């Protein structure tokens, strides 16, 4: 399995050329990072090349890396991650593409995999990542008229608005939320080696 992935990694290194920025195998999974130039051509190659044949797009999701490792992240903030599956070779591939911080925009792959349609709408809705060439980029999961991108790390967990029925006005009203965010278990990253506390089994 790992040999097959290693072969695929080397093959992709030759096939994708400049577009491929990075490819590594970790925990039995191959991750490739592609640049935005030539991204669509590379995707098409991944789908149609008989040695790749990644014909099923399993998942597309946005990632916000801003808090990664509690501030150790140096690199673009937003990424879009695609999970591909080849039914023919029974292999999976993870493709990552980074987007700019101020105006995150990446090419849409709807024309290559029709399944991307809703997944890209979801990434747009939750992270505000724009997909160039998407036929119908509307919000999908959040409320009608929602403001903000809720899955970004700087969006509060409790949200910004709350909704209630106002008997006087006879309608539903939105107000700034009064819920206070509380952290029960703090986030902790332990040092390497000390990573897992020192009590023996």
């Amino acid at each position: 399995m790992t040999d097959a992935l290693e072969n695929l990694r080397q093959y992709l290194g030759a096939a994708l050329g400049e577009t491929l920025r990075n490819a590594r195998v970790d925990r039995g999974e191959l991750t490739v990072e592609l640049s935005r130039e030539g991204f669509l051509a590379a995707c098409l190659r991944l789908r149609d090349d008989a040695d790749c044949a990644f014909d099923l797009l399993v998942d597309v999701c946005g990632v916000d890396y801003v808090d990664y490792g509690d501030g150790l992240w140096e690199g673009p903030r937003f990424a879009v991650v695609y999970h591909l599956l080849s039914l023919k070779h029974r292999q999976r591939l993870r493709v990552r593409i980074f987007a700019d911080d101020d105006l995150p925009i990446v090419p849409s792959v709807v024309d290559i995999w029709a399944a991307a349609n809703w997944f890209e709408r979801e990434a747009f809705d939750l992270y505000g990542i724009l997909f160039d060439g998407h036929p119908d980029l509307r919000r999908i999961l959040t409320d009608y008229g929602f403001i903000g991108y809720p899955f970004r790390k700087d969006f509060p967990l409790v949200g910004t608005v709350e909704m209630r029925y106002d008997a006087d006005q006879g309608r539903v009203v939105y107000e700034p939320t009064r819920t206070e965010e509380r952290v029960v278990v703090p986030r902790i990253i332990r040092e390497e080696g000390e990573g897992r506390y020192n009590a023996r089994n």
Partner: protein
Amino acid sequence: MPEINNFTMNFGPQHPSAHGVLRLVLELDGEVIERADPHIGLLHRATEKLAENKTYLQNLPYMDRLDYVSMMCNEHAYCQAVEKLIGLEVPVRAQYIRTLFDEITRILNHLLWLGAYALDVGAMSVFLYCFREREDLMDVYEAVSGARMHAAYYRPGGVYRDLPAQMPQYQPSPYRDTQRLAELNASRQGSMLDFIEDFTRRFPTYVDEYETLLTDNRIWKQRTVGIGVVGPERAIQLGFTGPMLRASGVAWDLRRTQPYAAYADLDFDIPVGKTGDCYDRYLVRVAEMRQSNQIIAQCVDWLRKNPGPVITDDFKVATPPREEMKTSMEALIHHFKLFSEGMAVPAGEVYTAVEAPKGEFGIYMISDGANKPYRMKIRAPGFPHLAAMDEMARGHMIADVVAILSTMDIVFGEIDR
């Protein structure tokens, strides 16, 4: 001659055959669907965002609430993701217990689907029969975890505890006479495995009953044959998985093609359809129930013969036995740290998938080494299926919308997350 415009109709969000809360905007030309635009998100709870703010163990029960008809399969994908990040070995017995419960879950899910589908298409009684069998399996859930639905039974590293030696029995009640009580308890005299084995013997005849009611039923065929046809290439292109893909004639099943848990050692078939219409999807799911039953029987047999640990002995991931905590200082520390700070998971990213009853249920998890996931993406099988609604419904009659929607096995817990 007046100009006739297309008629736009709202289906849901509160509609019995919307299977939860789906608002479907239908553009009609007479009775023919011109366009279907599903509006989802009415059940959106931001599970993925919540997961970023909870420890790995606290996140587990949220998995039950995603696809609330196939609870343990969701837990399975989540546990696999954590285990893969840590690089943890799961005891073999736990693998078999997980396989057993995955298949019980599959039958539970398909029974609910079958009942609800028949109800949507107009057959009332199948629903009642399906729920009769679901009751037995729910009891198994309850016996093993204490909860009938939201079990939280799988844990990273194995399962919470071993199978009970005694199957719980019905208690006397003013609403039940002694004869009925004896009937109910007849199969519950022995252990839980005895009860499941008895169920696997009874279940094929139940499936025969459903098939007698439906498979050759003329009305059933009129409502399902040739409805919502998706060819194999298109199904792959649309990201279909599970029975939706197999009914279109693609023999793809993760249990066989990328085996996990104990599936590699078990003997079962993958039912595949031909035309990819609603009728084929029905046949595939019914055949899957029979196969699941066969897998359950094999697991029961194996579990009887092979006692052993059911959860890892790495106490930084799983709790030590309770007796040990009374005497050992280290065990107490482990327990305290696990439930206050939680487990530390090495940095990295993994994607794990299981063949859930609805299709490929996947968890993509990024860890930066903290005690909480950095990012967790839930790949719900129903999401791409529902996205294909427009394409599948176009050109069909308005009554077929319900049949198509129901054939996808939609559950909004997982689609809206």
